[in-house]
């Protein structure tokens, strides 16, 4: 029970923060708002929790359920009070509307049956995943060589003692710790520390509950986003299911302990919150977007790359007139630089600046198209890029196109020019690296496909209004 209540606290905190933030009329679309707030709110709360734990550790305050939980509870109460004052008039209507939508009361006939069936299907999936998380002790390799190692030490010592490279460790005479990746950030281990504090013991199955929460939160947020973008309830739920059903995503919930799923959720939510802010210009979208983006490097080291890769989307959105040219120019320059480095062999400051182009096609095709990792995501990506080619740079889609385009270039660069190609050939890391971008990629596919579908409609019915 303590574990459940303890992980409800970040939910309340995050939801209260979003609800307390001022929003303008454009930022209050109504449809899907509660789902978006719950999903992104849990994740915000879970990140704020780790920020507070870092503060406590820096202030040499020992970790305990009280030291961590009470101040966060007070903060949540304060924010809830502020949110109540700001949005008192809307809460009852929002909850009633959400309940009606959840029960499918706005639908009738087979759409309602499909809605309920899809909800049950999603519920079954998350029930199965929850059983795996609750029963299975920490299983996948890196989880117990480089992530939970830190969690165990920090939980037992009640503080974030440093992890250092081996040379420093040998000199530290016990003052510092060592594991397989001492330079990895602490967000994910801090989640496990919080779970363990709530449990009062080291239980390397139950401590992974936040991975399940991450899966649920991401699912809720995607649904809320799609509803907010004007998708009908059943269409939004179908789109959400497509994202949540990706097998490799489910595996990272079931075999909890890696940072790739939190990374995927954080990147997706950063991009989607940013996208919402572009539309709404509302602080209630801006603050989450900035928070998610700023946290990317604190989840896993590739976050340092994913963070700047959000910038092309921002440039395209903020400067619609020149932004696309700037981003296209930057991408082209990067591509040319890569090609030049691949063809030359010059030395700069003692470093040999040569890149060897060797894209492991076979491994990549197996990972994306042949094996069961992604269901049909990559076929959909190819289909959306071909069918929706005229809409990729439409003002409403171009920012996300810039982000996923940059993300795909980053992945291809890694696979084609670095030793990561080995991880494609042996199928070891290719899917985990891709998972970071995958949920966002599927949302982008759905948006592009809708734009194409609307276009075919206007082509068939000349009198119909053009895409807004």
């Amino acid at each position, binding site marked *: 029970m303590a574990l459940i209540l303890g992980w409800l606290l970040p939910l309340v905190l995050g939801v209260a923060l979003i609800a307390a933030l001022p929003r303008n009329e454009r930022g209050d679309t109504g449809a899907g708002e509660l789902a978006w707030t719950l999903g992104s709110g849990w994740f915000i709360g879970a990140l704020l929790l780790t920020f507070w734990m870092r503060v406590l550790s820096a202030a040499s305050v020992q970790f305990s359920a009280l030291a961590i939980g009470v101040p966060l509870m007070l903060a949540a109460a304060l924010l809830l009070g502020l949110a109540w004052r700001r949005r008192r008039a809307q809460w009852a209507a929002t909850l009633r509307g959400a309940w009606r939508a959840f029960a499918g009361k706005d639908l*009738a*006939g087979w*759409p309602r049956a499909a809605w309920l069936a899809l909800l049950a*299907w999603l519920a*079954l*999936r998350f029930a*199965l*995943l929850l*059983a795996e998380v609750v*029963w*299975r*002790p920490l*299983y*996948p*390799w890196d989880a*117990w060589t480089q992530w*939970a*190692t830190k969690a*165990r*030490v920090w*939980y*037992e*010592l009640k503080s974030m003692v440093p992890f250092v490279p081996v040379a420093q460790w*040998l000199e530290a005479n*016990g003052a510092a710790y*060592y*594991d*397989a990746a001492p330079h990895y950030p602490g967000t994910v281990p801090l989640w496990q520390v919080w779970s363990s504090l709530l449990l009062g*013991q*080291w239980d390397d199955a139950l401590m992974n509950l936040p991975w399940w929460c991450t899966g649920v939160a991401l699912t809720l947020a995607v649904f809320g986003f799609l509803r907010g973008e004007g998708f*009908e309830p*059943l*269409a939004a739920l*179908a789109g959400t*299911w*497509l994202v949540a059903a990706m*097998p490799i995503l*489910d*595996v990272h919930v*079931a075999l909890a302990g890696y940072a790739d799923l939190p990374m995927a959720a954080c990147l997706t939510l950063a991009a989607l919150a940013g996208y919402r802010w572009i539309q709404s210009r509302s602080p209630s979208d801006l603050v989450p977007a900035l928070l998610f983006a700023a946290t990317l490097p604190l989840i896993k080291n590739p976050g340092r790359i994913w963070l700047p890769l959000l910038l092309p989307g921002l440039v395209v959105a903020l400067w619609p007139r020149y932004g696309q040219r700037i981003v296209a120019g930057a991408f082209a320059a990067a591509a040319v630089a890569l090609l030049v480095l691949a063809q030359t062999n010059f030395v700069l400051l003692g470093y040999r600046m040569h890149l060897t182009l060797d894209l492991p096609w076979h491994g990549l095709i197996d990972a994306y198209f042949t*094996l*069961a990792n*992604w*269901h*049909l995501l990559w*076929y*959909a990506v190819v289909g959306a890029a071909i069918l929706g080619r005229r809409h990729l740079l439409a003002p409403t889609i171009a920012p996300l196109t810039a982000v996923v385009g940059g993300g795909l270039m980053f992945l291809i660069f890694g696979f084609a020019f670095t030793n990561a190609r080995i991880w494609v050939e042996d*199928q*070891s*890391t*290719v*899917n985990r690296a891709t998972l970071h971008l995958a949920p966002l990629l599927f949302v982008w596919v759905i948006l592009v*496909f809708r734009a*194409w*579908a*609307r276009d*075919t*409609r206007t082509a*068939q019915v000349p009198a*119909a209004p053009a895409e807004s």
Partner: protein
Amino acid sequence: MTRDATTPAASAAGSDEAPAATALSPRNAWRRVALLFIVALAASTLAYLALVVPGAWFPSAAPRTWEAENLALTRGSGILSGGELVVTAPDATGLTLVSVVAKFRSADYPSVAWVAIGIPESADVRVLWSSEYAPQTLRNAPVKIEAGRPLPVVLSANRGWVGNITGLALSIQGPLTQPVRIRGVVAKPMGAVEILGDHAREWLAFESWTGTSINTIAGGADIQDVSLPVLLAGTVALAVAIGYLLRRFVPRWLPLPIAAVLMALFVAATLVLDVRWTWNLVRQVRATGVQYAGKDPRDKHLASDDAPLFAFVDKARKVLPEAPARVFVIADAPYFRDRAAYHLYPHNVYFDPLANSIPLASALRPGDWLVVYQRRGIQYSPAERRLRWDAGQSVAAELKLVDPLGALFQIQ
């Protein structure tokens, strides 16, 4: 707008209908989309079968299986264990040869499949056979190895695959990196139903969690002749193509926007994949429950794959001091090194995650601890109270715990 226009496909694709839509109800129109999917799937399947069925589509012969008990290890050494012929080494020339006496008509059985695992991919592997037609001649054909398993060999086009077959054999030329486990050999008629059944079994084979599951999901058996995602994607593409042509030339037949048709087919294909995936998940959860449900954290580890290691570390922890101490962990296998270290935290553990190395003796200080688990090359002299290892390294140490699998020392 009809109510059906609010479906996912229609709402995303627009609610228009083709000019001649009025004659057909939306329900019937969607039924025709389902029919399109079935027709495209049937067409893809028939085209595939036309390419791969080597003989009769509906042969009268049934598959013939010879289990491990029927096999003879003609060259090499091994034992029969648990229904498998476990070959541990080839003969002096590097040859492993397993044979079976058989009698069947080659025309009835175009394919032979050896059921085995652990075969090195670098080895020259062949299937051999003798026949009544040329009893003095031993014919052979190469066998492709994937993930340590031999793939079925289609022999119907081989000129030597004639008459009555009197014997089959599998030859492996080259060193064995691990024991090769052979379960038997199957002569297959390779009819359409058998091929489809084989594929269905591959797709529905239980894929339990392994160390690589976090990286990749095969989608059933490790080796599959046909990928289900590829088949379904092809089916969707074909169905959309047919739908597009129908809308163009017989618009009355399919009065739905092509985008809606595509989305509905895509969702249907994904649903097929997701049902398979969820079914696998159900079976996995059942297995996980049997292994772990109702157990406390300690008992879960004792029920886990690394139970002996955990039990040893558990004993070592009772010898180690309460306060975190510096502990060096060494083991030949990286899994044991890393896993032992994990179980030892919050002691201040050192392990080499990449190489089977031991720190220099000069790095060890009095009061440090050393955990040795299944590590060759470590010698301890109780008389001298001295620990020695590779390259002449040695250090004074006291043996604190010994176990058939490992030992714990304190550096003096």
